[in-house]
């Protein structure tokens, strides 16, 4: 009887094969795989880029039909954008020679990575979800995860990539507009009569004061006093009530102090 009970218990508790997967909005699992060109490709190298991943099987008939779609409708469309990267991952773990044949038949020119089934399982939770497209956004999160063959969701993938690329570009513009350091520009015009503009730039939001002094160090007036956002700012100095001469203007932003001279000519 004990043997029967033991057998019963044993059979009840044999384990199962379960694997987690990631969803849209979650951080894309990192991976390191070898490409057909024998280069180590790390996902983390593409931080701040929009990454398109085509999970394929080198021997998968549908993937062979759909491979040219990924090349022509995805890769070729966005290849010129420096913020875009396309990767193919062989999820059937086939030999490099098989993947070479796949590349030859499909005409894919973006990097094909070998032995990637574990990556597929990490993304999808199962090993049978090949012929799928995944898009990773500029924040490193999954922004699109296809649930059918890649020929079915080309438009959705394109829309997602374009949204992400637009986001990347606007972020880039923002970054280029932001000064890398605090600057105090020369006033314009200079010499001036009776008013002039003083521009300064902040690399990050700061408490700011812009103060005017005469050559004796006596404070004439304060033009700015308060918290200001990062970026370019301009204030106007009206010297109608002042006599001709050299004046000093001083910018204090956080711990930074910058000073320049200007000439009032009446």
């Amino acid at each position, binding site marked *: 009887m004990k043997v029967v009970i033991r057998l019963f218990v044993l*059979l009840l508790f*044999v384990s199962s094969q379960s694997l987690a997967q990631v969803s849209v909005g979650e951080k894309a699992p990192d991976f390191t795989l070898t490409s057909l060109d024998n280069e180590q490709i790390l996902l983390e190298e593409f931080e701040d880029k929009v990454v398109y991943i085509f999970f394929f099987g080198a021997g998968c*008939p549908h993937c062979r039909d759909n491979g040219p779609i990924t090349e022509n409708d995805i890769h070729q469309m966005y290849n010129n954008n420096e913020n875009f990267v396309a990767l193919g991952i062989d999820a059937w*773990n086939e030999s490099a*020679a098989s993947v070479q044949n796949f590349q030859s038949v499909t005409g894919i020119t973006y990097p094909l990575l070998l032995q990637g089934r574990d990556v597929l399982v990490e993304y999808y*939770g199962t090993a049978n979800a090949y012929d799928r497209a995944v898009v990773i956004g500029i924040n490193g999160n999954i922004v699109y995860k296809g649930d059918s063959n890649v020929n079915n969701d080309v438009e959705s993938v394109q829309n997602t990539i374009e949204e992400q690329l637009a986001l990347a570009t606007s972020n880039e513009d923002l970054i280029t507009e932001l000064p890398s350091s605090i600057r105090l520009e020369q006033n314009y015009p200079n010499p001036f009569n009776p008013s002039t503009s003083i521009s300064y730039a902040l690399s990050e939001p700061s408490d700011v004061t812009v103060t005017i002094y005469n050559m004796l160090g006596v404070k004439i007036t304060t033009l700015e006093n308060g918290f200001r956002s990062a970026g370019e700012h301009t204030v106007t100095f009206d010297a109608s009530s002042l006599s001709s001469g050299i004046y000093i203007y001083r910018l204090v932003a956080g711990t930074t102090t910058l000073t320049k001279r200007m000439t009032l000519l009446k």
Partner: protein
Amino acid sequence: MKSFAKITALTFFVVITPWSIVLGQLYGTNTFEFQYGNLPFEDDTDLSTSYNQLNLYYDSGKFSLFGKAEQFLSPHSERNYFELTQKRFQYQDDNFRIRLGNFYETIGSGLLLRSYDIPGSVFESDFYRTRYAFFRDLEGIAFDAGFDWVEIKALRAEPLQNDLPPNFDPDSLRRPDLAEAVQATFYPTDNLSVGTAFMRVNTPNSPGFNEFGSLMTNIQLPANFQIFGEYAFNTRSDLFSLKSDQSYALYSGLNYFKGSFGASLEYKNYSNFRLESSGFNDPPSLIKEHTYPVLNRSTHVPNTASEKGVQAEAFYSFDDGHSLVANYAYTVNNIFNKKEYREYFLEGFYKFNDQFSLKSFVDFAVDEQKGQDNRWSLGLITDKSFQNSKNVIVDLQYQTYDEFGSSEKIENYFASLSFGFTSDFNISAVFEATTEPGLTDNPNTFPEIETDTRTWLGFNSLYRINTSNTVALFVGKRRGGPACTSGICYEILDFEGAELRITTRF
């Protein structure tokens, strides 16, 4: 829930079974398979694994019960399982049948829904490394009724996604879709049948339902002609538009036979018709399913996203036992760019006398999807019988083709020598070789790409102990690859080692 299923299984087999014998007829089959060995190129050491499949049938008048229990044991606990993988209750009267549990059913020609069982097959994926029976059943309820002029079937069931093992968790991913279907086939005359079907599918990640309709007919024409066809469509598509942006499947054929001559012509046109997510429909491939190994694995898998094609076949049986079969198949996929599959096949069977026969074939194909051009396949099989039920079969096959992007000819060899000592005992040796780069190259040694010819040599023996018990033993290396049976293609893994299979009927 899994524990509950196991308790049910054990209860069924251990408690109910002995008592049920008294009340009705109990019979079944059992297949036990023991393997010692591994997949080639695997780093792991050789494994001892065992797989057992028990099928129990119980009939009592109009009621019947069925249960399939499978068990797999290996040194890796996460791969092991014991599951009641199928159970069915059935009530059958003269005109109708109700099935509850796991069952097989096909709607029309399989354009909408097809389930299947490949008896005796044991499937293993090289990721999960768990062995289990290969079938795609439906789990739910089915009703069918038949009268002189009409046949009706209705079902509400979840098709199995059979590339996930029985112990996959969550179990719900193995049956992601819910299909509800009704079909009615009318027989207004003996020579005419017309049918219609409606199916509603609820798939995960899909808003609402997808609904499909189907129209089918079968007409027996004068002069031994028969015409048949089915048109299935997504109800959101324009009816009969047959445009590439619509979702439909059209399959039709024409048969003719007279005396020893027969011919058939079939046409297919599939567009956006892979029914997600488990892809449970199986429109006919219209590619000849060969039994010859070099051709069986060179098959074409239909891509119902966009596939058109024809198949024509003719056969003639001569009075003295000779026969001739000719087949032509053409398929074009137009997903992004056009990819063609074209195959010409000719097979002859020549019977010298009752004790000596010869079969040969020649096949030419172009398969752009696989990147194979000028694919020639040849074969010669002789069967010599002796007195006392002894026989010798020699099977020689050869295949060669040009691979896209490669200047070298690819070659495949198959040779088999089989001795039948009695009708109950035979042994055979099978040798295979290939220069296919995808197979000669070891995936684990990249960047090195091996190109040396790869070979397999295996020995089989089969002994029928009696009408109920059979023992089969394999030792050596076995070549895997795609295998097709009854229109169903699946991947068989290479194997290296020893395999013992005991099949029992009771």
